């Protein structure tokens, strides 16, 4: 089992970083994975085009919640452009466990929601490849 739910993953799931709402934020979005019922709400505080803090709330499977928790650490200090360009692989590398196509959706839910928040606050359109994630619900 242990290659599935590694210690690091379980640690993030049980002790999520940057968890809980932010009173004031510069960018915000919500994402859902209807298949699993996973949900994350992402909020971002920006300073001079740089991510000062990303926080999240929501619920769902260990993968979705741990991945979003890891993401909050990964993007801290990145510029908006850097974060918006972050590939899915970055978060899969953090999780470091084999995932089926179905669970990859859980893993990238937080990242997709972050990108949506950043693009929306910048007024830029979502990149074309997100057209393929249309099994997810963004709002």
């Amino acid at each position, binding site marked *: *089992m242990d290659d599935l739910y590694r210690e690091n993953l379980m640690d993030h799931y*049980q002790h999520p970083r940057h968890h809980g709402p932010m009173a004031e934020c510069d960018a915000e979005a919500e994402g859902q994975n209807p298949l699993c019922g996973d949900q994350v709400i992402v909020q971002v505080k920006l300073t001079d085009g740089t991510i000062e803090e990303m926080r999240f709330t929501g619920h769902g499977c*260990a993968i979705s919640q741990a991945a979003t928790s890891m993401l909050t650490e990964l993007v801290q200090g990145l510029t908006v452009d850097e974060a918006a360009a972050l590939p899915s692989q970055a978060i899969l590398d953090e999780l470091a466990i084999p995932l089926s196509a179905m669970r990859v959706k859980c893993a990238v839910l937080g990242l997709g929601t972050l990108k949506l928040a950043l693009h929306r606050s910048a007024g830029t359109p979502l990149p074309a490849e997100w057209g393929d994630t249309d099994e997810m619900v963004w709002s």
Partner: protein
Amino acid sequence: MTVSPLTPTDLARIRADFPILARELHGQPLAYLDSASTSQKPQQMLDAMTSFYSTSNANVHRGVYTLGVESTDAFEAARDAVAALLNAPSRREVIFTRNTTEALNLVAKTYGVQNCGPGDVIVSTVLEHHANLVPWQVLAEQTGATLRFLDIDDEGNLQLDALDAIAREGNVKLVAVTHQSNTLGVRPPVAEIVAWAHAQGAVVVLDAAQTVPNRPVDVQALDVDFLAFSGHKTLGPTGIGALWGRESLLADLQPFLTGGEMIRSVKLERTSWNALPWKFEAGTPAYAEAVGLHAAIDYLQAVGLEAIDAHEHAITDYALGRLAEVPGLRIIGPQTAAARGGVVSFVLDDVHPHDIAEILDRHAVCVRAGHHCTQPLIERLGLAATVRASFYLTTTEAEIDRLVAGLLDVRRVMGV
């Protein structure tokens, strides 16, 4: 008369017929506990289809030549087998569809559209699979009829006391109900519902996707008006299901899909329809799948549907007992085997059902996690998802034991 469940010898013999059960995952044999989603297939069924394709395949109802006659005979013999399985008064009442979903849509888009309008009421329930719920939403929207849902109590038992208030809202035209919930295993009181509906002059549409596979289902005894099931849950192939409907109702309906097979005569200006059941089967039917379904029905009848029912009952009883040993596990739905079929939904503390299913998969135990295509039911129960284990004629106590062991490991991995 009670029928004895399958003996260990029966079970071993049956399991040997299912080639997929020889598969190993992560070094362990498969424990397939997702039969409510789809059944696995006996070799006899696979052989029937392959042998048909290898000797008699030709399009049906068309060729004068020997192959065409053999193919048509095989296809129509499958219809007879379905008619006999359901104790249908006539083979003309059996319409082949892709699955339960298409069968229910067929009723909505023919009987429903042709009989419902503003001031009429359609009744469904909060227990239903999306296949027996969304088509009625669409029908109500298209026709202006009112759609009402019967509620359940917290164990999943359907509450009939709202019926009389519903009857005061308009002419009740159609009542759509499941024969068994695919999520909770609970069986609604169909006889009471039929009596009430018929007193209102309404027809009853029974979703029998979860019961035709595992017990004798008799449309005359049930006295329903339409009944749907899927071949793939009944040891048969994907791509085939059936609608049974009363001939007196089907005869008056305009067709569903149009094209070849379902016509009597086509002119540019005007087309007339074929007789029942072909009026409702447009284009080349899934005739090889019908042959497979026929073999599946033969297999089920050779084992005996009463025996399968008894086995499911016994194994569900065993499973409920064993699952009670897992700390933090809560059964959703009826707590005893008496009131349910071989489907058990549960939650485990606040571990997400998808994590449970994924960890169980590492033990080669296949269960489903999610809403099981019953989102309104899951929401009514105040849940986001459940884990569901479901049983069939191949399920053994050893597989249940592996489920329980896996769940204990889930607790360990998830630290609860």
